[in-house]
């Protein structure tokens, strides 16, 4: 428990019209952990992602990432700070190749300008080679290298999920935020995903994970934050949270077991 906080959220609030999507959510993610974010549908998990990554401005509260506030940053600035995300409904660049998708992830860590692109000086050429090499390496890492030159939309569903993770990793994130990466995966694919996420953590990237697959969450996450109607109802070690009566009530008494049984 000595690892310092990588990300701390305090009093995060977000309202959409009459719906209070998030109200006063406090949490902290430690360096190097896999941190789960769970809750029933509509609990505000994805809203928290969108506020964190700057897609929506927060109505209240603040995120402190590596000791600095993220307040007022635009999505691309949040990415530059070192937070990368995936999306609940996959948002790949569908008509570009898998490799190009990952190469686009390198945008934020590379520098070529229009003039560099037009004149193709030695520096730009070296950068391009490095981008391509890194792109292939990341495709290997997540296990879709054999589809490198296929259009992203032609990839199998599970591969698309993996490709989205590779694209996010290409931005060299310190925190990788995954929005239901196992959704729609079968047991084998989920097992492979689990290994992948463990590898990512081992290689030094902290993970924030929204997931409905309770078995995966309980096996993988060090700590878990539970949201219900936009409020935090529990935070702590997975096993303890699972037994919390408030959590069980939120999942309508029994749904937790049901989820485990299904997985």
């Amino acid at each position, binding site marked *: 428990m000595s690892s310092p906080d990588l990300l701390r959220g305090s009093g995060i609030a977000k309202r959409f019209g009459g719906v209070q999507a998030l109200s006063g959510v406090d949490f902290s993610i430690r360096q190097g952990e896999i941190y789960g974010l769970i809750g029933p549908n509509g609990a505000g998990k994805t809203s928290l992602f969108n506020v964190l990554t700057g897609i929506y401005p927060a109505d209240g509260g603040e995120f402190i990432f590596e000791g600095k506030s993220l307040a007022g940053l635009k999505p*691309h600035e949040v990415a530059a700070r070192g937070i990368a995300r995936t*999306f609940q409904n996959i948002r790949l*660049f569908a008509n570009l190749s898998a490799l190009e998708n990952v190469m686009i992830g390198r945008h934020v860590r590379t520098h070529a300008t229009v003039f560099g692109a037009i004149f193709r000086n030695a520096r730009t050429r070296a950068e391009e080679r490095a981008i391509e090499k890194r792109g292939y390496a990341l495709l290997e890492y997540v296990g879709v290298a054999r589809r490198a030159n296929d259009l992203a939309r032609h990839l199998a569903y599970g591969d698309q999920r993996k490709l989205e993770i590779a694209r996010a990793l290409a931005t060299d994130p310190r925190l990788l935020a995954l929005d239901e990466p196992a959704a729609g995966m079968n047991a084998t694919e989920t097992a492979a995903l689990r290994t992948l996420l463990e590898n990512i953590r081992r290689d030094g990237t902290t993970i924030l994970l929204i997931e409905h697959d309770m078995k995966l969450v309980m096996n993988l996450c060090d700590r878990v934050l539970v949201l219900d109607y936009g409020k935090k109802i529990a935070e702590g070690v997975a096993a303890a949270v699972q037994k919390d009566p408030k959590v069980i009530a939120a999942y309508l008494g029994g749904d937790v077991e049901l989820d485990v049984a299904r997985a």
Partner: protein
Amino acid sequence: MHALIDTKHPAIAKVGVVLIAVTLAVLPFALAGIGTAWVRITNLAVLYILLSLGLNIVVGFAGLLDLGYIAFYAVGAYVYALLASPHFDLHWPFWVILPIGALVACMFGVLLGTPTLKLRGDYLAIVTLGFGEIIRIFLNNLSQPINITNGPQGVTLIDPFRFGTFSFAKTETVAGLTFSGPIKYYYLLVIVLLVVIVINLRLQNSRIGRAWEAIREDEIAARSMGINTRNMKLLAFAMGASFGGVAGGMFSAIQGFISPESFVLVESVNILAMVVLGGMGNIWGVILGALLLSFVPEVLRYTVGPAQQAVFGRTLIDPEVIRMLLFGITLVAMMLFRPAGILPSALRKRELETARA
């Protein structure tokens, strides 16, 4: 130039490049044999290719539907006309004015881009359409209180391109070959075109081009991956506009006369049709689309009348009407049977695939 050459078969590629070069070099003389009008038509076609390639950056790469693109052509044309004609009695050399024209058009690109950053699709199309019309109406009316554009009368007696005593408008005979004005402009245009093609290819396969394509595919994902979509969109508008500006300057010099009537909405639509017909986002497709839409109507202009004469002995229907009808049918058929264009962008990807496998 390596970007232009297929690296799989270097020998075949070299032969191909030589063949294309020879064809491009001989073409104007062959056309001049049929009639000087065809050299002029070809020059206009090359201008349209330049415009289509410029618009392709905005529409094809960045996915921003721009229906007012002709405005940048107009800006470039008027910058040249005003700085190289008796209107203000300025006669600056063209190599000074063309970069200025590109720069001014580029500024107008940013001017159009800034208020439209949050718009997409239909809404963007409407705003850009309005922008194109505003520019044309300004050009039409900026003759009072100070006469800047000379209003609907346009600007006349625009200087041709000149290098010292060498004028692009004069006919010269070198070693038995007659180089008419249009033929000289043809060579200049082809050189500019080659430069623009190389720039486009290089932009597409670069960090910048990929960022544009990312915005086209999914703007939210692009932003989340660290792409500053505001700057990248403005850059696309600025780059596209500056190509339009250069083309406009050359148009001004070649025609010697411009008026707001050359820059009507139909021209914007025409250029967009070239981009879409050829295959949005694919440079070679766009070139093909521009060539077809420039030449086919002209060929029809010269063939529809005589064909009727031959079949019916007299002209039944006005050739102009049939020409537009055939043109329209072709476009509709294209969109039905090949909606992604003649050479869709994804084809390039498949080529890439087989090249690497």
